[in-house]
């Protein structure tokens, strides 16, 4: 392996292009995808790599997202490395197969460019699409910027294919904010990426001929995948998936650290910022947390003891890491870019409230639903949120548990 950080080239890439470039370097066996705004550029760029003979990948331009993921399931079961990308309605159309891919323990990697769900039809960012898929059994890694989208797309294969994990991975990036915005992205040399991801490995299972065989469709070692499981068996497989998710936490961290060794950029389950002595903290996902860092810096200059945590891994949910990092915080402001209609708050809020239930000292937690359908979340609004959290901390209670930020009243 690498002994040190590899020499890296700086490229001007949009988030979509950064993902496509990472996939090109990984050179998976198959990419099956269908275009949808704002993911389209990923498919377009990758088609160019295929057309120019820069990859060995079999590109399958399917007739729907449902078939995109179905094709990946077949390919991954046949032993291939498979990749797809989608957004919003496309992810919704894949829904049925999301669960199947995860339950069949197929290490597929998918980029999801976050976009609001219809209706009304909207092409801009929020997290409704992937949040709806949070219980599908996929690992979900949310990226803050295009650099991270590049870096995470490479790491995703190592996580998905790890013998203790064997689960599909979603790499998410915010629609337009990241997907269509040019950034300077430091890219690794091809051979370094190739060595980092290595070859796909197969775990071994006991098949119906009572032999231990690789978990892959291989005529020499026939295996039945996708069988009919009644109440006698179904439950046990679900418990196994839960266990794999639990083990994925360590793997995500290990892979993120190892990647740091070759790139100088280390990744974990959560990314805290100026949290050490913080009384109040913001917590959220995706590109908004980049803006939130500026807000933290500004308010720190005013003397507010504030920090933040960006959650990178929403699934598996980094329970222990969050408890440890937030134990000293008085009040938390949760930034939810998705709604769970009829529930008490957004998806992240529910996780955070539940997280602290067993703790002796519980921080005050309030929810700020923002940015739906691409609604802007400027510094000013984030400052308002931070000050609201501070007020909760000062008065020792949450005045209003769930607020809508940037909404016209």
């Amino acid at each position: 392996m690498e002994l040190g950080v590899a020499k890296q080239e700086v490229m001007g890439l949009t988030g979509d292009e950064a993902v496509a470039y990472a996939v090109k370097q990984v050179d998976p066996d198959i990419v099956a995808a269908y275009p949808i705004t704002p993911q389209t550029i990923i498919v377009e760029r990758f088609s160019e790599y295929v057309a120019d003979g820069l990859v060995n990948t079999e590109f399958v331009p399917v007739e729907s997202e449902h078939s995109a993921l179905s094709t990946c399931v077949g390919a991954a079961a046949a032993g291939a490395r498979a990749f797809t990308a989608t957004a919003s309605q496309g992810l919704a159309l894949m829904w049925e197969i999301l669960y199947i891919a995860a339950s069949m323990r197929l290490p597929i990697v998918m980029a999801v460019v976050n976009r609001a769900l219809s209706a009304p039809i909207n092409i801009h960012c929020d997290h409704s699409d992937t949040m709806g898929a949070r219980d599908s059994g996929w690992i979900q890694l949310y990226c803050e910027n295009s650099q991270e989208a590049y870096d995470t797309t490479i790491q995703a294969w190592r996580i998905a294919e790890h013998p203790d994990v064997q689960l599909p991975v979603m790499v998410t990036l915010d629609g337009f904010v990241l997907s269509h915005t040019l950034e300077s992205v430091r890219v690794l040399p091809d051979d370094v990426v190739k060595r980092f991801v290595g070859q796909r490995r197969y775990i071994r299972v006991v098949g119906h001929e009572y032999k231990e065989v690789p978990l892959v469709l291989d005529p020499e070692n026939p295996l039945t995948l996708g069988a009919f499981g009644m109440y006698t068996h179904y439950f046990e497989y679900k418990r196994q998936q839960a266990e794999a998710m639990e083990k994925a936490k360590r793997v995500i961290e290990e892979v993120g650290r190892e990647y740091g060794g070759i790139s100088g950029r280390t990744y974990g389950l959560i990314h805290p910022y100026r949290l050490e002595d913080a009384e109040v903290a913001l917590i959220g996902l995706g590109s908004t947390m980049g803006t939130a860092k500026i807000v933290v810096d500004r308010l720190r200059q005013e003397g507010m003891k504030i920090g933040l945590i960006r959650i990178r891994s929403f699934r598996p949910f980094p329970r222990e890491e969050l408890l440890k990092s937030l134990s000293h915080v008085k009040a938390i402001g949760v930034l939810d870019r998705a709604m769970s209609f009829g529930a008490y708050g957004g998806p992240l809020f529910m996780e955070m409230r539940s997280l602290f239930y067993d703790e002796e000292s519980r921080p005050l937690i309030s929810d700020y639903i923002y940015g739906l359908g691409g609604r802007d979340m400027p510094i000013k609004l984030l400052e308002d949120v931070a000050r609201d959290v501070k007020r909760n901390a000062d008065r020792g209670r949450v005045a209003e548990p769930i607020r809508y930020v940037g909404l016209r009243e």
Partner: protein
Amino acid sequence: MGEEKLTLKDLAAKPDLLAPGHRMCAGCVSASVARMVMKATRGPTIVATATGCLEVATTILPYTAWRVPWIHNAFENVAATASGIESALKAMKRRGALKYEHVDIIAFGGDGGTYDIGFQALSGILERGHDLLYVLYDNEAYMNTGIQRSGGTPYCAWTTTSPAGKVIPGKPQWKKPIAHIVVEHRAAYVATASPAYPLDLIKKVRRGLEAEGPAFLHVIAPCTRGWRFPTNMGIKLARLAVQTCLFPLWEAWWEDGHPVYKLSGPSEAIARRPEMKKPVEEYLKPQGRFAHLFKPERKEELLRRIQEGIDREWSLLLKRAGFA
């Protein structure tokens, strides 16, 4: 196509790749069809199956009846799943990671998974030209969920969602001409087959596997439960379907920009000697799903319409195949 000589005796000695102990109904012809299809394999083979009777009843955990690598993904996507396997093997072969010179891929779909919910994915693989064989085992309704009508259910047939009522006498629509639709996609090889003619069916499977590009085999698969006939009658009905020209046997491929249709054995014989063609009533009468056409009184008008429909389709096929 260089053809290996296939004989029933030799094939009988070949071990079953769909093993006994599966849980398909007694007298299930779909099971016979699947066994025959698997008899025709010629080397390393991977099978994908759409949700349906064949899928559920052959793989009830912890058991499996399949002796080849087998995958079930969902209902509407067996074509896409199979295309993923095909593409994967192609890519793996290109980078020297495949230990086989070639692997045949067979996708099984029922009528629901093919005519209806799986139609889009099927059309997709045909357009993209994946090299695999799609076998439609057509029992003409959603049997796995308890006999609901599909795009493959014939005119006037009773199902639980096209009941024979006081006003509407069974399914008001005609059967979708699925195999012709596939031909028009410029598929490499398309054929119809009946399990009443095992050697014909097996040879067509083999040709489908040998064809380069997407091949499609439409097999009629009488269902004892759904068609309402005694368990011993399935093969007989599969034969009557051919003898009445309701389900004629043919093959089609493309040459110089034109479709070439060729009638197979029994159907070709009828084309040459039209007096051999049996009236459709012989096929309808033994089936409970058509009982309302005969009881409490004969529905002459409907019977006439059904016969006319068959005659019309048959003459269309005769033209395509160069007869008439």
